[in-house]
Each structure stands twice: as structure tokens, then as C-alpha cells.
């Protein structure tokens, strides 16, 4: 057995390098080749883990009640975690478990950059970071860590992350969509010592107060984070006194090695070895919008291919080769952010037992090609809305894993995948007359992808925080100068399938009591769908438009007691806002980046549904009747896409399946499918001519130029697939 206890004469940096060396030599975390404590006394060992996990969870719950932010209080955008002295995750609370390894990178970065010497790591110190190139996902994910000392020895770190609702960027809110370089993303805290003696520095708080539109959120959240960390630290210290320091140090490292082994064995239990492939696309539409800088003034189409190799030993290798370059926009991601995406997926599909820690990270590796949006080769690129590309990318990973689950027989675990959920960011003059900024986090209740055995979750899921909530409208109304006219299920927003994707919702608002409300939405694909279906299921429609009415006659409508637009309505060609209201009406494609709204204006925003699973004409007709009755699916889509014939009892407003007509309709659909379709080989032959002529719109052609330039493998496969000359270039 290799001894995992530290050499007390080593610095933490030396210790970190030594453990890395032992991992390289033995293939086991920190050189732990035997789970000695687990084998000797499993009850004592598991008891320690359970206590640590419960400490992180209770610290998070406590911090939520301290926070002033509805993002943390209502939606739960927070996580508390415990780390080894070298920064490896031991145990995490529930919440945004994205940050298993992002905070780990932050701690390791400080150690590797000599923080032991300067600025020093001492008892009572508080460090903060929101720089994704050091270790987080995006600027609003502000992490705070404190060292845990036992006597004079650093024995670990307590860390907490919360998503801040306002970060002081070029556009208001947390996810600063209009950021096109680092310099416009907002307030950065780059691995900074922000407190000592267990208190945040006054000058740090003053900096927050003077650089944010709505400092109360970040400031109170930081206090909540410090409180959670101190609570966790003190409880861990007490626990160490109970179990003994040597036992604590060895057992916590065994947890991580056990996590690594468990990940490998779960892959072998649930998957099938081999090569899995998938892709998705994302449209970025900002050309000519206000505030776009010259370098960014063009629309972009991103292709995101992912290859997953599941090896014989259970190791998974993810390869993003073939995706596009970073750009002058806010959607770039760093390797730390990609780690976040990895854990978003793993914690929901494989790492569902209690021991979520850095062991799973050690059992998985990724190729993030340098220069692409997954790994920019310049640290000044903006990453403020990295979820935009990150979440669709790891939605593919979810589907690839699900392919393995279906093959292996665990269809109940197959999940068509997480979706993005476009967020409304805003700021300007609040309803109270002062300045404000806000990320309206109700986006955390989108529709999930379908499962292999059932429909997706309706209005109750988002990839980055599976425990999330949309929050009460009344609570959001306290923080924004808008009144809800309605929140309603968006019919047909889930991808059709035997099991349909979860549907999402649309909110409509009346701007209220303000002269200036700037809205900048984020994380929203345009013109293309950024998700997919599986096994015959269709993607969810996620290329949303925004609806505004300026100078509306809403006041007059209220006075005359006319019907108000509480939703977009079930007519996909004409929204209720267009149909019912008078005023300057606009349907805006792409993100809403426009001149401010004011009292009396209307705004509507739709969130995303998830992809479907299986052939839609295999869907149980009774399920479709229920969908139509409840407003999840329109009668038109029920008949066209699911081939179900329904009779409507107008008096009782109920729907009944006409079974005989449905059988006939489904037979007819099968026949028409074959009469319309062509053999794939013929289609390839005809499409080849189009490729040879480069007959694509600019954005598509540029996407190919970029990806074929950056990836020789993709270029080669592209030429091979279409049988193009070796010198073919787009």
C-alpha cells in the first residue's frame, strides 16, 4: 500500500505535485492502490462520508436563507463542497453540482501560483474567484473558498458557489450576452484574497457596491457563502477531533479513489464499449443589433460534433474535434467550464450515488481542441454566457450515454438530454425609482428531454441544476419593474416522439412603473434547434422569437375590461399579443438586444422544451388525447405528427380518440412516408452536387470553412463522405 498521508515537511504545492506523480505512476488517486479503511471498517468509513455530505447540504440550506437573491433563495443556484488540501473534491451538497471540478481548478491554481508565499494561506482567510480561465464556468458563478486548518496544518478547503444575478457588465444581469471580449463582461475577482479573520474585507465590499447595478445580491450572497464555508469548516474540524486527523486524511482520499473506481465500474455496468457519435448546432444572430462591435458584427452558425469513446477498462474519452473557433461573443467556454458541463451530465446519469467527487473526473478525459470555443487560446475572450454552447454540447453527451443505456437494457436511464433555457437579463430603472439589475432565473424550469420509458418533465427541469425551481412570480415581481400577465405552458414546445419531450412555458409581462427597462436575453439559439431527439423522436423547437408591443393600449384595455394577452396562444402563426393588443408590435429574431422598454410596454419570452424519444406515431393515442386536453400539444400536431384522430366534444371541452380512424391514419402515414422518401444513397448523390457547388448561405459556408480549417480530421471525413477531390475547400 502506498502511504497517502502527507509529508509534513512538504509545502502544499509539493504535496500537489507529489500526488499527481503518484497518480501517473499507479493510476490510482494519490497513489491509493487499496481502499484499506473501506475494507477494514466499512461502517465507520461510510459514516464519515455520510456526515460530510450532510454537512455540505445543511450548510447550503442555511446559506440559502441568508442570501438576498431570489436566484439562490427561490431557485437554489448554489452548491457547497469540501476539498482536500490540494483542491480535490471530496463531497458536495445538492444544487449546482456543476462545480465539482471548477472550484477544484481554482484552489489548485492558487497553490500552483505560489499563494502559500504570497498573499499567504492562513487560518481565517477568504478567497474568491469568478475568472473562468482560472476555474469557474462564467462571470456570474462567483466562488468563495476558505482554508480549513487543524492546529497549524492545512487539511482542506470549504467552498461555495452561487450564480450572481448582476455582475456589472456591458448589459445588465448575470449572463452578459453583449460581452464580446473579457473587458465588457463585468466585475472580475481573479483568485483574490477577499477577507481575513473570517470576515470579508471592507474595501472588497466597497468595490462590489460601486461596480454593480444591484450590489445587494452579490454582497449578501458572498456573506451567505462565507457563512456556509465557516459552518462547514467548523463542523469538519469537530469531526476531525472525533475521528482523528490521520483517519480523516486517509479516508477522504479513499473516497476519491473509490469515486474513480465506481465511475469505471458503472460505465462497465451500464454502457457498451465502442464509439458513439452525435452533433448539434447553434445559431448566433446579432448582426446589426445595438451595441455589437465591428469584430462581432456577423451572424454565426456553430456545429458541435461529439465523439465518445468508451474503452474496455470503462474509461470514457470525449472528443470535441471538429467544432468551431472561439469568437468575439460571450459564448466561449474554458476547460474549467467544460468540466462543469461534464459533471452536469455525470451527476445526473451515472454519478447518482452519494460519492460525487473528483474521482469521476479522473475516470474521464476530454479532447478540447485549442483555439475552439471549448478551449480558447486567448484569455481575453468573453465567456459570460458559456452555457449557450456548453449545454447543447453536453446534451449530446447525455444522448450518447443514453444510446449505451438502451443497448444495455437500462432504458429507464435513457434520457434524450438536457436543454438550454434562454434567460432574461435586465436592468435600468427599478419600480422603486433607483437603479437595478437582475437575471430572471425562472428559466430553470424548462422541459427536459424524454426518457426511454416516459415523457420528459414538463416545466420543471434544467440541465445545470436538476433540483431547480422557477420561483414564484410574486417574488420576481418584487425585484423587477414588470408585472406578470401570465405564465403558461407552451403547446408543442416538446419534441414529438413515442415519449414526447417535456414542454416548456412562456411568460408575458407588462412593463410597470419605470421609464427605462433594458432587456438583454441570453443563451438562445436562433434559426436552428440546439437539441435533438433520439431513436425516431424529434428535437424540440428552440429557435424562439421575442414579442414586444411598445406604446400599447393595455391601459385602455384594462379600463374597458377587454381580454388581455396572458400567453402567446395556441395559434403558431399569430400570437395573442399581436391579435389582441394595439401598439408598435415587433417580433424579434435572435436575442432581444434593443432599446429600453418603458411602462405600458409588453414583452413575451419563451423557454425551451426537450427532445422526443421514439417514432411519434407509436405514441399511445390516449396520451395524445390527454396532451391536447391539457394544452401540451395542439390538435393539429396530434393529427399531423402523431397521426391520432381526435373528436372534440365542444360542450364539455373533452377529446376522444377515434380508434378506427387513428389506425387508418397511421397506416396512411406509413405509406406516405415511403412514397415521399428516397434511398439515402440517391440523396447523397444529389446532395453531393450541392456540396461541390458550395451552394450554402454565408453562415453555413463560413462554418465549414472554419471547422475544416481547424480540424484536419473533420475536413478529411467531410471530403470522404461526399467523395470530394482531395483539394476540395469550402
Amino acid at each position: 500500500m502506498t502511504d497517502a498521508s502527507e509529508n509534513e515537511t512538504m509545502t502544499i504545492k509539493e504535496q500537489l505535485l507529489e500526488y499527481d506523480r503518484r497518480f501517473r505512476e499507479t493510476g490510482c488517486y494519490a497513489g491509493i492502490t487499496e481502499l484499506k479503511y473501506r475494507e477494514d471498517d466499512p461502517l465507520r468509513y461510510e459514516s464519515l462520508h455520510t456526515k460530510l455530505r450532510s454537512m455540505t447540504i445543511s450548510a447550503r440550506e442555511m446559506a440559502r436563507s441568508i442570501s438576498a437573491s431570489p436566484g439562490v433563495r427561490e431557485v437554489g443556484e448554489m452548491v457547497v463542497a469540501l476539498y482536500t488540501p490540494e483542491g480535490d473534491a471530496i463531497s458536495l451538497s445538492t444544487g449546482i453540482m456543476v462545480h465539482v471540478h471548477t472550484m477544484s481548478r481554482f484552489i489548485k491554481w492558487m497553490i500552483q501560483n505560489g499563494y502559500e508565499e504570497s498573499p499567504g494561506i492562513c487560518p481565517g482567510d477568504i478567497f474568491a474567484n469568478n475568472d473562468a480561465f482560472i476555474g469557474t464556468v462564467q462571470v456570474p458563478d462567483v466562488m468563495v473558498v476558505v482554508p480549513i486548518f487543524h492546529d497549524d496544518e492545512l487539511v482542506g478547503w470549504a467552498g461555495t458557489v452561487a450564480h450572481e444575478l448582476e455582475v456589472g457588465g456591458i448589459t445588465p444581469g448575470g449572463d452578459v450576452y453583449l460581452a464580446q471580449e473579457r473587458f465588457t463582461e463585468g466585475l472580475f475577482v481573479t483568485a483574490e484574497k477577499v477577507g481575513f479573520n473570517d470576515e470579508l474585507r471592507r474595501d472588497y465590499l466597497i468595490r462590489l457596491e460601486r461596480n454593480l447595478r444591484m450590489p445587494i445580491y452579490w454582497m449578501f450572497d458572498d456573506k451567505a457563502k462565507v457563512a456556509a464555508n465557516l459552518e462547514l469548516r467548523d463542523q469538519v474540524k469537530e469531526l476531525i477531533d472525533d475521528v482523528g486527523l490521520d483517519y480523516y486524511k486517509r479516508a477522504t482520499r479513499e473516497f476519491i479513489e473509490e469515486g474513480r473506481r465506481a465511475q469505471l465500474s458503472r460505465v462497465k455496468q451500464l454502457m457498451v464499449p465502442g464509439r458513439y457519435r452525435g452533433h448539434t448546432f447553434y445559431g448566433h444572430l446579432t448582426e446589426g443589433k445595438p451595441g455589437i462591435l465591428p469584430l462581432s458584427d456577423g451572424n454565426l452558425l456553430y456545429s458541435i460534433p461529439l465523439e465518445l469513446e468508451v474503452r474496455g477498462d470503462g474509461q470514457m474519452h470525449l472528443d470535441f474535434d471538429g467544432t468551431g473557433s472561439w469568437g468575439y461573443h460571450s459564448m466561449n467556454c474554458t476547460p474549467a467550464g467544460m468540466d462543469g458541463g461534464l459533471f452536469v451530465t455525470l451527476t445526473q446519469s451515472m454519478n447518482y450515488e452519494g460519492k460525487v467527487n473528483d474521482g469521476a473526473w479522473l475516470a474521464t478525459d476530454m479532447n478540447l481542441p485549442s483555439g475552439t470555443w471549448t478551449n480558447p487560446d486567448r484569455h481575453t475572450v468573453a465567456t459570460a454566457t458559456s452555457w449557450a454552447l456548453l449545454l447543447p454540447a453536453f446534451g449530446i453527451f447525455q444522448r450518447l450515454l443514453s444510446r449505451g443505456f438502451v443497448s444495455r437494457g437500462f432504458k429507464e436511464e435513457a434520457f434524450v438530454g438536457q436543454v438550454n433555457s434562454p434567460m432574461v437579463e435586465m436592468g435600468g430603472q427599478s419600480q422603486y425609482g433607483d437603479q437595478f439589475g437582475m437575471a430572471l432565473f425562472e428559466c430553470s424550469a424548462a422541459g427536459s428531454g424524454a426518457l426511454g420509458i416516459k415523457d420528459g418533465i414538463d416545466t420543471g427541469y434544467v440541465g445545470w441544476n436538476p433540483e431547480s425551481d422557477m420561483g414564484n412570480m410574486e417574488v420576481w415581481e418584487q425585484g423587477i419593474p414588470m408585472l406578470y400577465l401570465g405564465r403558461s405552458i407552451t403547446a408543442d414546445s416538446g419534441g414529438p416522439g413515442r415519449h414526447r419531450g417535456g414542454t416548456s412555458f412562456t411568460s408575458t409581462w407588462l412593463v410597470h412603473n419605470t421609464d427605462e427597462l433594458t432587456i438583454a436575453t441570453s443563451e438562445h439559439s436562433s434559426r436552428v434547434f440546439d437539441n435533438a431527439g433520439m431513436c425516431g423522436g424529434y428535437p424540440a423547437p428552440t429557435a424562439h422569437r421575442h414579442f414586444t408591443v411598445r406604446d400599447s393600449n393595455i391601459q385602455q384595455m384594462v379600463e374597458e375590461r377587454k381580454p388581455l394577452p396572458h400567453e402567446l396562444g395556441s395559434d403558431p402563426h399569430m400570437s395573442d399579443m399581436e391579435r389582441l393588443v394595439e401598439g408598435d408590435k415587433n417580433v424579434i429574431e435572435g436575442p432581444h438586444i434593443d432599446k429600453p422598454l418603458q411602462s405600458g410596454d409588453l414583452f413575451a419570452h419563451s423557454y425551451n422544451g426537450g427532445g422526443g424519444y421514439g417514432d411519434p406515431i407509436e405514441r399511445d393515442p390516449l396520451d395524445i388525447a390527454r396532451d391536447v386536453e391539457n394544452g401540451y400539444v395542439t390538435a393539429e400536431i396530434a393529427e399531423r405528427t402523431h397521426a391520432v384522430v381526435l373528436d372534440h366534444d365542444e360542450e364539455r371541452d373533452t377529446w376522444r380518440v377515434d380508434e378506427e380512424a387513428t389506425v387508418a391514419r397511421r397506416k396512411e402515414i406509413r405509406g406516405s412516408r415511403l412514397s415521399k422518401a428516397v434511398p439515402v444513397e440517391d440523396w447523397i448523390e444529389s446532395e453531393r452536387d450541392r456540396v461541390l457547388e458550395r451552394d450554402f448561405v454565408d453562415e453555413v459556408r463560413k462554418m465549414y470553412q472554419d471547422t475544416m480549417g481547424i480540424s484536419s480530421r473533420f475536413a478529411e471525413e467531410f471530403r470522404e463522405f461526399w467523395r470530394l477531390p482531395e483539394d476540395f475547400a469550402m
Partner: protein
Amino acid sequence: MASYNHDTIRDLIDGRLPWQSTRSIMSQYKDDDRFFKYIDILQERVTFNDPILLPIGEHLYIVAKQGEPQGERVVKCGCSYEFGHYTRNWKLKAMINVRDDEEEIAEIYPGRHSYDPDWMEIREFICPGCATLLEVEAAAPGYPIVFDFLPDLETFYRDWLGRELPKESK
């Protein structure tokens, strides 16, 4: 370790098991003997006798052919339609319908739910034998068709399942 009988697994994969039982199974440790029970259930449902080696999607199976060339590992639809050797992308032998005009798009995604066909197309891969929709791709025009899954059957059977993979004649 957990283990479930044939009928329970059948109802589970069909989504017909009561949710309380499904949830309980999802929360338990996984049943290590699932794979061959699953294969038995699927084998009862297909119209061919070739033994299923591995399902690779709904209605799609890699089988060991009983006819000539015997043992050849080919992809078959549940209706018996044969797509060729599993190491080649089965989609290339399917039928395809591409939704790249307004009318075709509106059948599934009408009005404000639509996408821009200059940027994206929906590709439907259909079984020539039974017209089942086997897979849907949403891709930029010109993007090569994806080969979804190439399993490592030898490693899977030999090392993970501890069973011998039926031989394939060369």
C-alpha cells in the same frame, strides 16, 4: 444485488410498470443480469430468428445471421429488413425524407416553432421495410450523416459479459 423477472423488465422497458415500482427500480442498484433478459424479451418481438447480439436503438438490432453468410453480424430492423454489416452506417441503406421547405417544416414545426431551412434541415431515416421512423437528425445542410454507434462487440461480450461472442465467418 437486485434482480427482476422477465415480466417486470418487459413492463419497465415498455413504460407500463406503475411509476412507484419504476422509481424504486431506478433508485436501486442496477440488476447485473439485465442484459440477457432484455435480449430475450426483444427476441420475442422481432419477426426473425437470427439471435440478437446487441440492440442499437428502437427497432434496430445487430444480429448474428442464421442464413448465409452464417454468423455475419448485420443490422436488422425488427421487421427483418437488413441494413448491412454493423461496421457500416445502417443509415446509408435507409430511406430518407428531408424537411427543408416551409410546407414540410410546418407539418411538425408550424409558424413561430419553425427553423430556417438555409441553416438547418430535419432528416428522417425511415425503414424501407416497415416505414418506421428510426432516427431523426437536425443538421446544417451539407453536414455528413452521422454514424451513431459502432460498438466494440468483442470486448463487450468477452470482457464485460464474460460470454463468448458467436463467431463470424470471414
